[in-house]
């Protein structure tokens, strides 16, 4: 354990040049991207939103005048226990011209009974029960086949939504006709359940709320969460719906972008979702998510970087930012680690605590911005107590999981063996190289 006085004295003597040399990774990538750019873009976002307020009001009026039918589709396996809560949540929506289509993707519990009962009682418009599991994409596509709405809202059954969520997620379509898909804002419902869920709650606020507001404003928003996203039905039909996952959310977003449509993040479309409550379950989930970056961004949609007639700079930067900050940064972080060990090996006892201090300070600065924009900020302040742990969570835990995922996918095509997707589909996808 380093003596605090010795620690302060060391960094006083080291001078700012050495400080920047040691923490170049932080200043060059992390601080610039996640603090500096975030702040600037958020200020721009709110300025723009205020300037265009009347356009947003007009969008709301247009939505209510047209009253389009909206198909809410909910594919899933063994989600029966969540269905009643979900239909109740939808019954409270301010926008009510909805049809609810629930797909039971080969459940082996009581889902079919529950869903059928809700359908019989008029709480679900169409309940499709597939006896054989086909995977999330096929479930969503089954619902899409029978959806009659002008817009499709894709939800996860274990989510619940603010009363205005559906209305809010539809508004961007009336604000800008070039918008083809809109992502909703999800926060963690079970954030008090365990330390793992608390840290994820902070992460969701950083990555989903702030991160997606920033990427959306910059025009490089790249993933519409399957848990809450809205799509123009005509675009989905043109694309033939979702392709095989995992990572189908990101995949469909890229495909929509490739068609030339904009995708938009709507922070006011607010919902809650449950997240894994142990680090073990979380690691499993993230391994799946991170593998999909390699499979879809790096392999399937690599043509986004080609200078062909469909080339668009926004798409190029969208994927570049994603791959850069996930894959390349990860590699660079290990290079940085080697650099520190090789060049400053004897100074680890000074570097490590300073590293934690820097990242924690950056987290506090970033979270201050979140507190300004988030719903119920008084509840979120409690999370600040856990910010020091975020250094270990994002800096070490998630980074290690991510690295493992990338290696597994790059060298062993592990996503095709993921039981999340049925073997029959993965086998065929692997055979076709998709």
């Amino acid at each position, binding site marked *: 354990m380093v003596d605090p006085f010795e620690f302060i004295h060391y960094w006083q003597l080291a001078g700012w040049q050495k400080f920047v040399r040691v923490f170049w990774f932080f200043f060059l990538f992390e601080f610039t991207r996640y603090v500096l750019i975030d702040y600037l873009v958020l200020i721009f976002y709110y300025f723009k939103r205020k300037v265009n307020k009347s356009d947003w009001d007009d969008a709301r009026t247009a939505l209510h005048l047209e009253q389009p039918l909206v198909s809410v589709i909910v594919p899933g396996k063994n989600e029966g226990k969540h269905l009643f809560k979900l239909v109740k949540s939808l019954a409270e929506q301010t926008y009510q011209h909805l049809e609810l289509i629930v797909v039971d993707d080969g459940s082996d519990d009581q889902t079919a009974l529950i869903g059928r009962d809700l359908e019989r009682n008029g709480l679900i418009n169409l309940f499709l029960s597939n*006896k054989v*599991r*086909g995977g999330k994409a*096929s479930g969503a596509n089954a619902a899409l086949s*029978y959806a009659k709405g002008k817009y499709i809202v894709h939800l996860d059954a274990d989510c619940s939504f603010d009363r205005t969520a559906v209305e809010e997620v539809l508004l961007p379509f009336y604000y800008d006709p070039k918008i083809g898909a809109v992502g909703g804002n999800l926060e963690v419902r079970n954030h008090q359940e365990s330390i793992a869920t608390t840290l994820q709650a902070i992460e969701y606020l950083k990555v989903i709320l702030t991160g997606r507001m920033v990427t959306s404003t910059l025009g490089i928003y790249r993933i519409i969460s399957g848990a809450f996203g809205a799509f123009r039905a005509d675009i989905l039909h043109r694309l033939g*719906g979702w392709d095989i996952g995992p990572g189908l959310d990101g995949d469909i977003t890229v495909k929509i972008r490739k068609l030339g449509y904009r995708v938009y993040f709507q922070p006011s479309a607010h919902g809650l979702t449950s997240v894994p409550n142990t680090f073990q379950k979380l690691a499993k989930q993230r391994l799946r998510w991170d593998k999909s970056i390699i499979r879809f961004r790096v392999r399937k949609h690599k043509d986004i970087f080609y200078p062909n007639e469909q080339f668009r700079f926004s798409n190029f930067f969208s994927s570049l930012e994603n791959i850069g900050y996930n894959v390349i940064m990860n590699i660079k972080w290990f290079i940085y680690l080697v650099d520190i060990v090789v060049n400053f090996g004897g100074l680890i006892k000074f570097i490590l605590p300073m590293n934690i201090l820097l990242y924690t300070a950056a987290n506090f600065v970033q979270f201050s911005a979140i507190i300004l924009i988030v719903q119920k900020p008084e509840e979120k302040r409690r999370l600040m107590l856990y910010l020091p742990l975020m250094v270990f969570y994002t800096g070490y835990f998630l980074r290690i999981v991510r690295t493992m995922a990338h290696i597994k996918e790059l060298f062993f095509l592990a996503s095709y063996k993921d039981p999340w997707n049925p073997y029959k589909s993965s086998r065929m*996808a692997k055979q076709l190289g998709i």
Partner: protein
Amino acid sequence: MQLNTPIKSITTLHGSRERILNIESEGYVFAYITDRFDGEANAFEEYDGVIILPTSPVLLKEVLHRFRSANSWTARLMPLFLHQQMELEYMHRQLVDGIVHQLDELYGAVSQIKIIKDHISGSRLRTFPTYEKDTIYKLLVYLLSREQKTLKAYIDRNSSTGYTYPILESLMNGKTPYRLMEFAVGEGLFTTQFQDSVYTCNSCEDGFLMYREACPKCHNTYLSSQDLIHHFACAHIGPERNFQRENNDLICPKCDKALKHIGIDYDKPAVMHHCNTCHHEFQSFQIVATCCSCHKTTAVEHLLKREILTYHLTDKAHTQVEAGSDFNHQPVQENAIPGAVSEAAFYLNMQYELMKSGKQKVLMGMIRWEPFDRILEKIGRQEYHLLQVNISDQVRSSLQSIDFLCVLDNCILFSCLHTSTELAYRVVERTVFLLSHLMKDNLGQDITFEGACLQLQGQQDVKTIVLEKLKEASW
């Protein structure tokens, strides 16, 4: 045995004269007729028994029914025997007292007559002013005179519920006996035992129903079905017709690849049904039943389930028939709401309260629910009655013991006596709130409640004011 031919002729229901054979045995005189006989049963009062020669089941049933539904005690309780070689059909066991194989051997019949007469002499034959009590009493006397301690239901395709209690059918002229028997059980005259259960129409209680699969949306039965196909390679899923091409090939409409091998390229995870009338697509049929009697089509979950019971006479039934004593309770009128007064009684009581109060205001509440017609159509009259009872119970729980209420088709009227105006309004408001939530959660369909409070004073006519209020579109 003496056989005299003929000793008597009787004018039939059709005005013709019909001859009856007279048979005497051991001092007992039997009339011998065929089941073609269509005269009055009361014409046989001077006989000790009647022997019937059956020629057809329909005619036999008719003639037996004529005896057992006769007005006079003697004709109704007349010992009846069939002249045939076969065993008694199960249906006739409740109505007939035995079989006569040969007309010169009537010992069995005579001894049966003695037993019956003995029992009848021990019973007090009386009548009751109400239909229910009178019918039950007739049933008791009949069963006891035959030493039948059990009243069993028999399957009968001619019965409206599919089951019949032959003696009850005769005594009640074909009306359904279930409510009457509930009253008898309530009186302690019978105990019950489960025999079977049947579904009946919720409108007319008829048991002859035609079951079909129907579209859950428009209830039409013109349907077609098709498999759903899931193409593994691109995760596309849709009805088989979207994959079919002219040459019988299956081509994925999303990625244009050929589907060749089930289990390798594709599978069929589910079946979809298509309504050819409204084009609704669905997986779960609605099973509907159309009543052959009233032609109403009902979803099977809204049919009435009726338990068919076997009834066993109790000792109390013996005592009651021996003493001829009255019943303990009054039969409940059909569709009566427990604890509610009739509409006329309500207006009368309110008018009386108004008169008593002098210049003081008298308050009453009204709660109305909609859509009356659609709810009634959907759930049927029996379940609707239960709904009215539930609403009435809920309203009753908000009132004081001195208050009274009455239930109309889709409205409930209740007094709010000795209550402040503010409190009466609060009672109406709270009850409407509770009912709305209760029914929404439990009935699972849209039912809206609205309430009103009326302040009555002086010489006002309560009925006129209430009817005026009921005409208002919204309160």
